[in-house]
């Protein structure tokens, strides 16, 4: 049997497993909006852990990070800072979001923000920002899937066909079983991708260099420039390091697919344990990708598309069955993020737009079917976007992270009681100003004064929100007492 047939068959076995899990989830599902959208708020630690880490790590972790180490050297080890920060944010902010969601029945991030700031304008602004910027993330994942299937099949399955097959599988199990199906498949994908990247990296390190330490030694002697910052192309300047740390931590956890996961935890202890331990998985996944990228730069220099270093090494040096298992892991990484984003966008559009403004007061069954229809439309959007090629997946992710990052002032205003409270006008004005700033500092003048565009946007956002809030009406005393009082009781067990 030809190697590409074996490798592609392994990926298809993985796809069948995912579909089977979706069908089982469908049988366990009840026609209830909280069950379809939030897993009935009953997710235990292990399931929540695996879905959070699998959602966070995407095609970017498998393809983009290896490509980044390959092209820009050890500077990408900055990844440790943002992955640890994700844990700390979950520990401190995630638990508060969970407590408010449980107390007041929030389903989306916009539910929480619109309730506290008493504003439909805030709801719409947050929903627009959430959907707009996560669509870029869909594009990155769909493109990753296309790359993987094309490489695994040795070009026998074309990029458009491969992307379509994988998107249809993800959408099928999502439509069948809602968030339950997403969580169960994420658990499978989370385990598979972690084992796959470690096994692949260690296999290549031993096969090509005699072991990881010999690989490090080879890089030290043959390409020492790769082991210094800012790297051979000068990318990892202090400004870029700080910018990526902030955008890929706060910017990713404030995306709706991550915040919705916080609502689903079964209790507060689960949330805290989640925060304390997620960096173990998230950070250690970049240890093998460093070996792949840096070792790949020695073995296969001058690749036109750095993101393809891992699949290229596997197809050249690993047996077909092993390459298939590992590339199925890469598929899992992309699909686990893609299905979560599709689900989050479906949730936002169903809850914040359809249920709120188009057809309020209908049955849960009605909204579940509308959600499924929205997923079908998103499938078309994701496929269309995936046909626009961009070799640097990580750049796309950074763009989308910068967008969701702009929700930070509004979220901190809700989650951290204090003497000053932002107003609805302040939040909306800050968001609007940050969008203009992002366009200027990410697209027109990237890295203005050596500072990442996401940071510029955040700085302007905070400044505008605070100044406008000073002169406009703040949330009512009742709302502040209800929401911040709940947090005071939850965190400290005291009253105001």
């Amino acid at each position, binding site marked *: 049997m030809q190697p590409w047939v074996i490798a592609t068959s392994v990926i298809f076995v993985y796809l069948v497993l995912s579909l089977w899990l979706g069908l089982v989830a469908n049988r366990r599902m009840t026609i209830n909006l909280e069950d379809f959208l939030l897993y009935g708020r009953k997710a235990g630690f292990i399931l929540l852990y695996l879905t959070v880490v699998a959602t966070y790590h995407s095609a970017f972790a498998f393809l983009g990070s290896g490509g980044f180490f390959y092209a820009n050297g050890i500077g990408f080890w900055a990844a440790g800072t943002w992955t640890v920060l994700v844990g700390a944010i979950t520990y401190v902010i995630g638990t508060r979001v969970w407590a408010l969601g449980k107390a007041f029945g929030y389903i989306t991030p916009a539910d929480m923000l619109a309730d506290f700031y008493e504003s439909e304008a805030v709801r719409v602004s947050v929903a627009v920002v959430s959907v707009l910027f996560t669509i870029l993330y869909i594009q990155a994942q769909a493109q990753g899937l296309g790359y993987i299937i094309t490489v695994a099949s040795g070009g026998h399955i074309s990029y458009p066909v491969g992307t379509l097959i994988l998107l249809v599988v993800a959408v099928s199990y999502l439509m069948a079983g809602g968030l339950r199906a997403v969580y169960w498949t994420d658990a499978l994908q989370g385990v598979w991708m972690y084992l796959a990247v470690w096994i692949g990296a260690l296999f290549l390190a031993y096969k090509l260099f005699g072991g990881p330490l010999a690989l490090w030694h080879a890089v030290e002697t043959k390409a020492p420039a790769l082991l210094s910052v800012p790297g051979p192309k000068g990318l990892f300047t*202090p400004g870029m390091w700080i910018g990526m740390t902030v955008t890929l931590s706060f910017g990713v956890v404030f995306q709706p697919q991550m915040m919705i996961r916080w609502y689903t935890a079964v209790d507060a202890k689960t949330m805290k344990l989640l925060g304390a331990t997620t960096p173990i998985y998230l950070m250690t996944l970049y240890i093998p990708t460093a070996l792949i990228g840096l070792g790949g730069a020695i073995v296969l220099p001058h690749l036109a598309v750095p993101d393809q270093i891992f699949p290229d090494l596997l197809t050249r040096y690993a047996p077909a069955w092993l390459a298939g298992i590992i590339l199925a892991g890469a598929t899992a990484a992309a699909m686990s993020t893609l299905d979560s984003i599709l689900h989050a966008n479906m949730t936002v559009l169903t809850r914040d737009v359809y249920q709120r403004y188009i057809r309020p007061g209908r049955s849960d069954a009605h909204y579940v079917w509308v959600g499924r229809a929205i997923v079908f439309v998103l499938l078309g959007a994701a496929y269309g976007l995936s046909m626009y090629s961009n070799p640097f997946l990580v750049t796309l992710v950074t763009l989308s992270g910068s967008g969701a990052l702009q929700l930070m002032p509004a979220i901190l205003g809700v989650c951290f009681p204090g003497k000053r409270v932002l107003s609805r006008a302040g939040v909306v004005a800050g968001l609007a100003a940050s969008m203009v700033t992002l366009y200027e500092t990410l697209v027109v003048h990237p890295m203005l004064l050596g500072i990442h565009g996401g940071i510029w946007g955040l700085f302007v956002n905070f400044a505008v929100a605070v100044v406008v809030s000073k002169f406009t009406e703040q949330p009512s005393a009742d709302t502040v007492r209800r929401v911040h009082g709940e947090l005071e009781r939850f965190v400290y067990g005291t009253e105001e």
Partner: protein
Amino acid sequence: METPETPEARKGRPTYRSHLIPRTRDGWIATVTFLVIFALAMPPFTHTVWDRLYPTILGMPFFYSVLLFLYLALIGVLIWAYRRGV
């Protein structure tokens, strides 16, 4: 059009002690330790003090090893905070 709020409205709103400042000893230890270690894993330290190949630690480049140690220490702080109920 938004209007500035009246002094009465401002007066009726409850205020809380800031949640950004720890209120317990363990909270202070966890926060300060995390922030100090995190600062060591950021510029300017990364681009000056740690930016070197040698001495290698356990066969790995100095820069990589030091940062790995700092990341593990940060995870350790989070787990300590969880165990202490911070």
